[in-house]
């Protein structure tokens, strides 16, 4: 086995004395790698909190009666579960990956605006903790993560006020992060990296950043108006005062539909990185996969009203949004088929990262197919606001985003920590998660079709058995996080050391030490091959001179 490794003398010595200490992670540090880890760990913490709430929700739903928590608490729980999972887990986790990886992948020393970057991160913990605490002190927000008025104006000022405030802060954080991503990707690549040699993760982050910049401000506008209705007594969205609740729905979904792609595009990018490395094959159709991210972002901006097919929308509007929504299957299909062709005929290492990446494709497709069904207006009229939608959203969000995040964490763990994960525990984690996930969310399709509406604490007893299955599945999911936590913590502290490039990958982040030195690269690297040139002969890679690359790299023929 052949490896490339940057001699430790180059990678660390230069900055003598600037070793990173553990407590740097708890400070206002401006290094993008510290910030990336801060994002990821914080987000995971909130995932556990949101998951705990889901466990309580599922326990309540184990029986048809409303017997475990009060109906008010139940609504508070589901509101906070949805809000936390979206705004404090998947969105910030995606931002964390982007922070860690973008500068490394494009050969930059840091993000374009490191201070802004740190500021964006430090807005998250206070907003998140305030939001989570609203369940304990005072009344929790109870109008669902969509918070439709007029209900949201009637469930209590304190909880709803906290919800609005937290979301405004989190939205600002997200916008500031996106500015950084966009400027960094566009302006800070090493000179030898044209856009069409950029790793696909950078393409998808570019699309994500655009969506954040276009969508989030409109959500902020809606929240500002909602706050006025709630606290000052205006009636923008309150029909009692002549306002129009449907305007809120439009503004909310104008952000929140793109938000689902904000949550999944970074992971599309991560999967496009992970599959080629562990299949030892070039990614299939680089250009198509790259541009489909932009196509998804564009289409994502013009489909929001598919969440409002039974709301006050005119028929022609429903038809336009139906077609536009369905068309998203095309660019997404290009990605999915590209991934399948990438691994087809490869040499697959079935390690934890690869298993989660393949699991991602397997499960996301189910959610995508139900998504296209939901886009069909006549069918959506039947299943809107039912457990069919809940099933869809968890298949894309859990099967998509969460699987993708796990894959990404396993894949870049050696880079981030300088240590290898334990693959056995990783595989156990994957199998438990995969089974638990399907057990929890598959029955929900049938529940929804049969007539179980969502956001209810008590339901018709005829739905009991399927709900019991889902509850058991959710406990399995809770258990499945344990091997992951043990593995991650133990490996970080005591795992076997990883060298700079344990996977023999070709993208730039692997061409420096693990963990990378504070400014990433000793000297700015020059690209001599594309990011996915696996299996290519040297001439095809097009090295200027065959040995140029290896001259200063100590190559150690390993086992």
């Amino acid at each position, binding site marked *: 086995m052949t490896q490339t490794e940057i001699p430790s003398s180059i990678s660390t010595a230069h900055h003598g004395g600037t070793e990173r200490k553990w407590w740097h992670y708890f400070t206002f540090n401006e290094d993008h790698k510290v910030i990336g880890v801060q994002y990821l760990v914080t987000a995971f913490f909130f995932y556990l909190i949101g998951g705990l709430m889901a466990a309580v929700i599922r326990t309540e739903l184990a029986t048809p009666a409303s017997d475990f928590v009060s109906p008010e608490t139940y609504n508070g729980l589901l509101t906070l579960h949805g809000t936390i999972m979206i705004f404090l887990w998947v969105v910030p986790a995606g931002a964390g990956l982007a922070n860690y990886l973008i500068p490394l992948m494009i050969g930059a020393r840091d993000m374009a605006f490191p201070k802004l970057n740190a500021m964006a991160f430090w807005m998250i913990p206070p907003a998140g903790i305030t939001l989570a605490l609203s369940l304990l002190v005072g009344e929790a927000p109870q109008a669902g993560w969509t918070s439709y008025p007029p209900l949201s104006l009637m469930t209590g000022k304190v909880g709803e006020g906290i919800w609005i405030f937290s979301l405004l802060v989190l939205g600002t954080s997200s916008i500031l992060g996106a500015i950084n991503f966009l400027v960094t990707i566009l302006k800070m690549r090493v000179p030898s990296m044209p856009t069409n040699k950029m790793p696909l993760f950078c393409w998808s982050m570019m699309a994500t950043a655009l969506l954040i910049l276009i969508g989030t401000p409109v959500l902020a506008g809606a929240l500002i108006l909602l706050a006025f209705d709630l606290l000052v007594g205006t009636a923008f969205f309150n029909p009692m005062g002549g306002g129009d609740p449907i305007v809120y729905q439009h503004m909310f979904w104008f952000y929140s539909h793109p938000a689902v792609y904000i949550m999944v595009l970074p992971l599309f990018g991560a999967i496009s990185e992970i599959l080629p490395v562990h299949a030892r094959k070039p990614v299939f159709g680089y250009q198509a996969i790259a541009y489909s991210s932009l196509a998804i972002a564009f289409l994502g901006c013009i489909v929001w009203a598919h969440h409002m097919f039974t709301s006050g929308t005119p028929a022609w509007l429903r038809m336009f949004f139906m077609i536009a929504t369905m068309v998203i299957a095309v660019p997404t299909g290009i990605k999915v088929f590209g991934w399948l062709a990438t691994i087809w005929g490869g040499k697959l290492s079935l390690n934890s990262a690869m298993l989660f990446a393949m699991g991602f494709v397997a499960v996301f497709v189910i959610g995508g197919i139900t998504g296209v069904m939901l886009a069909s207006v006549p069918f959506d009229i039947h299943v809107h606001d039912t457990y069919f939608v809940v099933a869809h959203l968890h298949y894309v969000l859990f099967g998509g985003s969460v699987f993708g995040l796990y894959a990404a964490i396993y894949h870049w763990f050696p880079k981030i920590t300088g240590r290898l994960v334990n693959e056995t525990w990783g595989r156990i984690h994957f199998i438990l998660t995969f089974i638990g996930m399907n057990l929890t969310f598959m029955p929900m399709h049938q529940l929804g079709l049969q007539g179980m509406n969502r956001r209810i604490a008590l339901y018709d007893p005829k739905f009991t058995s399927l709900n019991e299955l889902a509850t058991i599945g959710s406990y399995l999911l809770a258990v499945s996080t344990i091997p992951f936590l043990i593995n991650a913590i133990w490996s970080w502290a005591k795992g076997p050391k990883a060298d700079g490039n344990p996977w*023999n990958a070709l993208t730039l982040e692997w061409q420096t030490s693990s963990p990378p030195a504070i400014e990433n690269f000793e000297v700015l690297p020059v690209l001599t091959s594309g990011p996915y040139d696996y299996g290519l002969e040297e001439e095809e890679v097009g090295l200027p001179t065959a040995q140029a*690359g290896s001259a200063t790299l100590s190559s150690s023929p390993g086992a």
Partner: protein
Amino acid sequence: MQGSTVDSAKVALDYHGSAATGHEAHPDHRLFGLIVFLGAEAMIFMGLFMAYLTFRAVYPSWPPEGTPERELVLPGINTAILIASSFVIHRADTAIKQNNVNGLRKWFAITAAMGAIFLAGQLYEYHNLEFGLTTNLYASTFYVLTGFHGLHVFLGLGLILAVLWRARQREHYSSEHHFGVEAAELYWHFVDVVWIVLFLLLYIL
């Protein structure tokens, strides 16, 4: 760990090729960052404008019957002042590009004064309007839109004053280094353009 035929010769790095030692400060991307930020700001206003237009479209008559008349003279003058200030602040930019710090100070001070007059005029108008924030939907949108814009004028004014403060030292800004000046100017133009749209929507349309 996995094996591979990828060998060191094919790895994506070539340390030879890089002459740069690489700790130079990277080029200044702050202006580009600001432009992206203003794009996001524009989207907030876009959202609020669309909401306003929707309310307008679905209401039988707009402003709703019984809304007291607004007079146009004062807001008209205010608008003229704000638009003029955009030209004024541009002279400051021209001045600093010729290393004329005095010119910068002068034109920024005038812009600041004009901005302050605009804000004062706005407050005066609020004070004299016959409807309040919650009178009806038109009144609410009026106050929230102009108020939100006023907040931006206020921030822009802050930026201008900050630049003025820094320009006390003669060397702080020069024809090469004047990001602060450009940022304040760009922001001010943005606030100005938003106002023009707002004025058309709220007063003229």
